[in-house]
């Protein structure tokens, strides 16, 4: 199978890569670009561990073909902190112990950021439904929901 040249923007950087037509965006991120922060938990769009933003929309990168990102804007967990400065969600997740094993955490952070950009003042129920596509098997979600709300309050008052 021939590879195809793709030009896209990832976390603000112009990025060119070659890929096969059947490769997912997740495979390209992880295997070709060395961006392993997005995780594959299922490969079928059920767990959300590979969540990224594609042109401002929250998607499972395992369900996006890499060739579809031609000319697109992709944001991943690797672009969430600003240098040394963590995004408030990242910092509060640490402060409030909203992670245990941490493997779902990148996807949950990307999804939570997307929520707060759309809805800076969500109810707990809204947070729970928005994150229903992101499986976490360690925490029971309790501390995750609280951390999202703490970060949301902080971001509103900033």
């Amino acid at each position, binding site marked *: *199978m021939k590879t195809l040249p793709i030009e896209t923007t990832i976390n603000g950087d112009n990025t060119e890569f070659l890929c*096969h037509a*059947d490769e997912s965006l997740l495979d390209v991120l*992880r*295997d070709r670009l060395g*961006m*392993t*922060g*997005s*995780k*594959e*938990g299922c*490969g*079928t769009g*059920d*767990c959300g*561990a590979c969540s990224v933003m594609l042109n401002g929309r929250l998607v499972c990168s395992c369900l996006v073909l890499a060739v579809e990102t031609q000319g697109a804007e992709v944001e*991943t*967990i*690797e672009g*969430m*902190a600003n240098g040394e400065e*963590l995004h408030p969600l*990242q*910092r509060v*997740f*640490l*402060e*409030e*112990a909203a*992670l*245990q*094993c*941490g*493997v*779902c*955490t*990148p996807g949950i*952070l990307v999804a939570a950021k997307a929520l707060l950009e759309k809805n800076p003042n969500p109810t*707990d*129920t809204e*947070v*729970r*439904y928005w*994150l*229903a*596509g*992101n*499986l*976490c*098997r*360690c*925490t*029971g*979600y*309790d*501390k*995750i*929901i*609280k951390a999202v709300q703490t970060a949301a309050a902080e971001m509103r008052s900033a």
Partner: protein
Amino acid sequence: MAFDAQTHREFKVVGTRVTRPDGIDKVTGKAAYGADISAPGMLHGRILRSPHAHARIVSIDTSAAESLAGVKAVVTGADLAQPEDDFFADVAINCLARDKVLYDGHAVAAVAAKSKSIAKQAIRLIKVDYEILPHVTDVDEAMKPDAPVVQEGRALETVPRGMSQNVTTHCQFGHGDLDAGFAKADKIIERSFKTAATHQGYIEPQACMASLGSDGRGEVWCCTQGQYMVRQNCAAVLGVEESQLRITSSEIGGGFGGKTSTFIEPVALALSRKSGKPVKIVMTRDEVLKATGPTISTSMDIKIGMTQDGRITAARGELRYSGGAYPNETVDMGAQAAFAAYDLPAVETIGWNAMTNRPKEIPYRAPGAPTSIYAVESVVDELCQELGLDPLDVRLLNAARKGTLSSYGPTFNEIGLVATLEAAKAHPHYTAPLGPNQGRGLSCGFWFNFGGNTCVSLNINDDGTVGVVEGNPDIGGSRASISMMAAEELGVPYDKVRTVIADTSSLGFNDITDGSRVTFAVGLATIEAARAAIKEMCRRVAKIWDIDEEAVIWEDGCAKPAGPNAGTHPPMALAEIAAIAGKTGGPIAGHHEVNADGAGVSFGVHLCDTEVDPETGATKILRYTVFQDAGKAVHPDYVEGQMQGGAVQGIGWALNEEYIYGEDGRLQNAGFLDYRVPVASDLPNIETVILEIPNPGHPYGVRGVGETPIVPPLAAIANAVSRAAGVRMTELPMSPPRLLKAMTG
């Protein structure tokens, strides 16, 4: 090692909520898990799996796959050693089948190729000729004398003759006169229960990268709960020496017991040996569900007698567990745990294991206990309903306490059950009003907890910081709690300590991260290692001050003269001692090696409110509170996290999760869409109440906390649902169709 004599110890670090040391990497995507590393020249491995529940392998033709461009190696069971030891032989044939496939998904052959897509293509070119055999997936069916036999000649000597060859284990525990006990009862209830197999459901599939040379030297990077266990298994299955294998554990994306065995590491090593290249294998989710270890499936009978005022007079349980296609002794733990919460005059628990054509059971958080305790606690609840008694009062009346002869033999030492029940009774949740179609359930839970083999090295660095080297993968924040205990003992700030997890060549043997043992046993060894380092620092200072070693004490991170007779030397801080270590005898370190006992059993009580929908059979969890004795909560955030996470896994087990097999013996729901674990919108907040009844077996009183929280939810929810629905539920999961059927008769 006993609980410290000082009864009113003021902890400075232990009990605080510090930030975990691996946190930044985990919120920025930098942390390296099993699938996250690559090597130059690396090949991609993929495994061919049986589509049949049970079949004889007549032949395997790998020639077409081998000749596909880009394929560098193909292996089958013939490429692995045949260990004589039964345990390792089972590991080997579970990694790659030999004569028979024992379940849908059983590995048959594997390839290594230049790319994932070539590997995928190549396994389709392997031709396996199967002779299909009759299969059995239900435990009760498997115990029938005429059931298809999964494996022959595997029964232990304890199994009576004349039973199906599938029955491999028989155990029995108890004491007292059952007949006399039941004769004293005013009410006896006997019920049968069934529970489906569930999966640990860790979000990170098994993944490894392995390299093995023709000289027998190898390296493995993998996500595991125990690098030393991986080394033992790989050495046995590959026929190489342990000293020649170096296993490094990656960050681990969940385990819950499920990563306490090996499935792919020996296969990757075999492919690497054959191809001469590093080989990476990453399981897909359907492989994880089909071919790694779910929990047991069960069938159970429970009979309990009670007086009108709520005293249990006798109790009997018979448990039939299936641990899949191999002999399995999880039922032993289920039988021991079943009645552990009660002080009983007469009790008997009998257990059986029967093989079925299902994947090999691998431990899942308190293995064996959630199901047997579910059955017991359901019958206790029904007795309370029938006799009009308060379920918490009945449990308090019958609760095991210090001095109770437990249902499985030992006499309990200091335990926290009564305190935990009293906390539940005093909590506003217990008396909050309920609406229509709503019910409240409660259950006790119990887990043994383990200690086990543990090595820790603690190094005092020249700049006054401290390095702790331990050998257990950090599955939920243990590096933080271990650093905290080192800091506490040495009297230095938490951020001066860094704890790392050693590979198998850098530290002596450690048991796997299981049995809720790490904070207990590694913590204990860390405290002892710190004490050894302190002793050495005091010795060095005594030399400097020219006084007796015994005249130097350690306080607040400093060596000090023990009293006025020792002189008026100003205290020397750890950093000062470290800075001149080269002049006083060389580097300073402490280490400790132990097979720790005294883990201290753990009890929990869960309270749950549910609402059932009479039209759909769906259950909503309205409120959930977990009460648990942690001994001493080293890092309360992560103790709460264990309590919340365990409760939610139990909620999944109670309401939705199940292995569904078709008539053809194939797994019908091998994906997260159909094997439904709880999601955020299914749940309320999980409230937590930590009790601290010190464990006499640990210097700070720590008990393991990780497993107990999955034990009570099954019964707590079943009792809540049964009360809400007005019908006793005796089968898990209580999925909407099952509940609807029960409610509509």
